[in-house]
């Protein structure tokens, strides 16, 4: 089996549009959450959201590329371009070496809405235009980026709800570990437009703390009242160790474990056993004991039951070992399809710079989070190994273990 290393990361998020900006936000506990008045005009129960502008790609990408890209593909272009630069890949390398792409994504809303609106209004499908079909598919990000970067390897999208980005990295990890690919560009992307979370808002799952947007996302805190939707894109480039050494590439970290499971119980209510099993499988896959984990980047989204059950799952696996835990969603909000990838990027930034980002707004624990070692402030600490948890609707669970490269 091949060892799998990370040679490039990139990020375009509500707490920074590149790695340097995000590092500063993580160190300073800066929130990317705002109150969007337009959502209130449309009757949303919560107008809270992460705020992110679309990048200006005119002059960078040609019209044909831009017409086919929804906003989250634009975000993913930005994060992937940064990761490719970081990993020191050249267009020649992609031409001469089969390189894959596996992204996590689970929606593409405005293109679908616009297409239906046009057909209903005009009764003429030709008025939809040429970009709609490519923008509206779940695989929009992987299909667009594979063409833009001229990739010739594995090419598909993972739709695994809020664990999509994490499973995408897991799939890329398997592809390389078992020798099917040498390089796979992995990541996750999430749209942030008005309508993309309308149906999610209908469930009443979002925080109502609209008077204090930046305090609304408070994972593990006793007074948490729901998640805050957010988005952007993150890219994690995986490569076989042999390929990375041959290229003389910078090696940021090594992926050593991937654990997955399904709760098999409820469409929306998270379980304890499913996540605990995924964590244990990841630990076994990495060949390490719980006490060897230095940091857990929790899935914790700030929902009352989700955080409670994750706290129970972590406690059941780690017990008295109590590694430091934080949920970066306290700053970013819930980046959903992107979160599993972005939280690996955030954690690698921490690993590289020897600090643990805070779980901001964690003021008072509840009965279950009190058993964990959650930090509300920055901790200066060397991280050798971290665990990144991602869970999603339908009870899908994905856990990744990433190790400093030695």
């Amino acid at each position: 089996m091949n060892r799998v290393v990370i040679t490039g990361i990139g990020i375009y998020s509500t707490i920074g549009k590149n790695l340097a900006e995000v590092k500063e936000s993580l160190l300073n506990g800066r929130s990317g959450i705002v109150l969007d008045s337009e959502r209130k005009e449309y009757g949303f129960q919560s107008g809270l959201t992460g705020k992110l502008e679309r990048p200006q790609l005119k002059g960078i990408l040609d019209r044909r590329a831009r017409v086919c890209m929804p906003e989250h593909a634009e975000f993913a272009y930005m994060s992937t371009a940064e990761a490719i630069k970081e990993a020191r890949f050249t267009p020649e390398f992609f031409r001469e070496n089969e390189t894959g792409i596996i992204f996590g994504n689970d929606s593409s809303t405005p293109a679908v809405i616009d297409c239906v609106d046009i057909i209903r209004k005009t009764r003429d499908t030709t008025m939809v235009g040429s970009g709609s079909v490519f923008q509206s598919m779940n695989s929009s990000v992987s299909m667009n980026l594979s063409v833009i970067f001229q990739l010739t390897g594995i090419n598909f999208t993972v739709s695994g709800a809020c664990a999509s980005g994490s499973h995408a990295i897991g799939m890329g990890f398997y592809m390389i570990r078992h020798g099917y690919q040498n390089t796979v560009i992995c990541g996750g992307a999430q749209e942030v437009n008005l309508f993309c979370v309308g149906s999610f808002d209908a469930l009443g799952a979002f925080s109502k703390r609209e008077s204090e947007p930046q305090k609304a996302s408070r994972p593990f805190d006793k007074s948490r009242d729901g998640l805050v939707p957010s988005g952007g894109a993150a890219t994690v480039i995986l490569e076989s160790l042999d390929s990375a050494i041959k290229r003389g590439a910078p090696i940021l970290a090594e992926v050593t474990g991937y654990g997955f499971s399904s709760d098999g119980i409820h469409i929306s209510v998270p379980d304890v056993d499913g996540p605990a099993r995924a964590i244990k499988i990841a630990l076994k896959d990495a060949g390490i004991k719980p006490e060897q984990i230095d940091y857990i980047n929790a899935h914790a989204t700030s929902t009352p039951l989700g955080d409670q059950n994750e706290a129970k799952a972590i406690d059941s696996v780690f017990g008295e070992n109590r590694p430091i835990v934080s949920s970066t969603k306290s700053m970013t909000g819930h980046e959903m399809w992107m979160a599993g990838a972005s939280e690996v990027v955030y954690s690698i930034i921490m690993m590289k710079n020897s600090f643990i980002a805070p779980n901001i707004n964690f003021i008072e624990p509840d009965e279950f989070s009190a058993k964990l070692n959650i930090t509300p402030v920055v901790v200066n600490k060397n991280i050798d190994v971290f665990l990144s948890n991602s869970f999603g609707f339908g009870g899908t669970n994905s856990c990744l273990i990433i190790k400093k490269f030695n």
Partner: protein
Amino acid sequence: MTRENIERTINGLLVEEFEIEQSVISPDAHLKDDLGLESLDFVDIAVIVQKEFGLTLKGEEMTSIRTLQNLYDHIDNCVRKK
């Protein structure tokens, strides 16, 4: 709408919407070979023609339109018949 208006409108859209250099736009320019347009672009041209001129370009009509001159002529003929 005059022939001059049709040509000016089409040329303007090619420059603005399709980002084609003004210098390569001429009546005998081949849509694919000279202007670099591809089959997907013709889908968007049909949308623009509908919005600008109220004309529906059918697929079979598009296959016979090879140059800008063909496109001007086709729109001009359709406008006159309206």
